[in-house]
């Protein structure tokens, strides 16, 4: 299913999220099962199915990585369930170092400072990768789409690091 089509939006990575939000709400209202209380079984079922599709589509388009994955899937590059190992040694070494930095936060003299320092690094790196991703998806050539897939994989590591950092922050607050 083409989620962009469902919301009648252009299939692009750069998306107006406010517009997506209002179209989502309008479609939700239109297909809300309450509107089909008196309808036939078939139409009621259709409204339930359609509501589920709308929710899935909104969820996927709202988040940049899922949106990029959907866009790539539409272009014939399915990467969302791949189990292939990632093997770029330079990138992985950097990930290792960032993980080590995370590990050292709780024993550092000023954990808040340490968190801030990692947070800034992660933010900076994410920004660079997202910018490259947007450019690769915009170019939309076979080569650039492969490049975009590689960038999505890298960004997943950074989103995971962000999640780990937030867990550490929570633990320190408790």
């Amino acid at each position, binding site marked *: 299913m083409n989620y962009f089509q469902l919301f009648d939006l252009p299939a692009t990575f750069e998306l107006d999220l406010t517009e997506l939000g209002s179209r989502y709400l309008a479609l939700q209202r239109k297909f809300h099962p309450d509107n089909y209380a008196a309808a036939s079984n078939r139409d009621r079922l259709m409204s339930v199915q359609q509501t589920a599709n709308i929710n899935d589509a909104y969820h996927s388009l709202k988040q940049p990585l899922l949106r990029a994955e959907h866009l790539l899937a539409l272009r014939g590059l399915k990467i969302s*369930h*791949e*189990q292939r*190992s*990632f*093997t770029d*040694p330079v*990138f*992985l*070494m950097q*990930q*290792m170092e960032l*993980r080590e930095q995370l590990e050292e936060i709780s024993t550092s003299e000023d954990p808040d400072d340490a968190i801030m320092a990692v947070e800034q690094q992660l933010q900076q790196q994410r920004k660079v990768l997202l910018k490259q991703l947007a450019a690769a998806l915009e170019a939309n050539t076979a080569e650039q789409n492969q490049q975009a897939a590689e960038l*999505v*994989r*890298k960004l*997943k*590591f950074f*989103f*995971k*690091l962000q*999640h*780990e950092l937030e867990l550490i922050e929570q633990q320190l607050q408790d």
Partner: protein
Amino acid sequence: MAYSNKVIDHYENPRNVGSFAKDDPSIATGMVGAPACGDVMKLQIKVNEQGIIEDAKFKTYGCGSAIASSSLVTEWVKGKSLDEAQQIKNTDIAHELALPPVKIHCSILAEDAIKAAIADYKQKRGG
């Protein structure tokens, strides 16, 4: 999700955690990662002149199954030739640790890590 006893054992008492000096010519390093879960795995082997893996160390950031898989592999490769170590299959790892289907990718990661380390060693020797 319940971990098997073997996974818990390796997780609580991981074997061969750590790093070797990277500039030592007898050391080779395999680095792999799984984008889906963000796991990162480093596996190092120390190979002697006869091409036998004398020692191995790992460092893994990931779930219990990923740590157990890499810990197990470091035990398995010790004393093996490079060719023998190359034969280690993820299915053997998954079977030994009784990994559930959703954790099979952790054993794939460990297999790829040892293969990457062997490739690194051959490249070091060849180049």
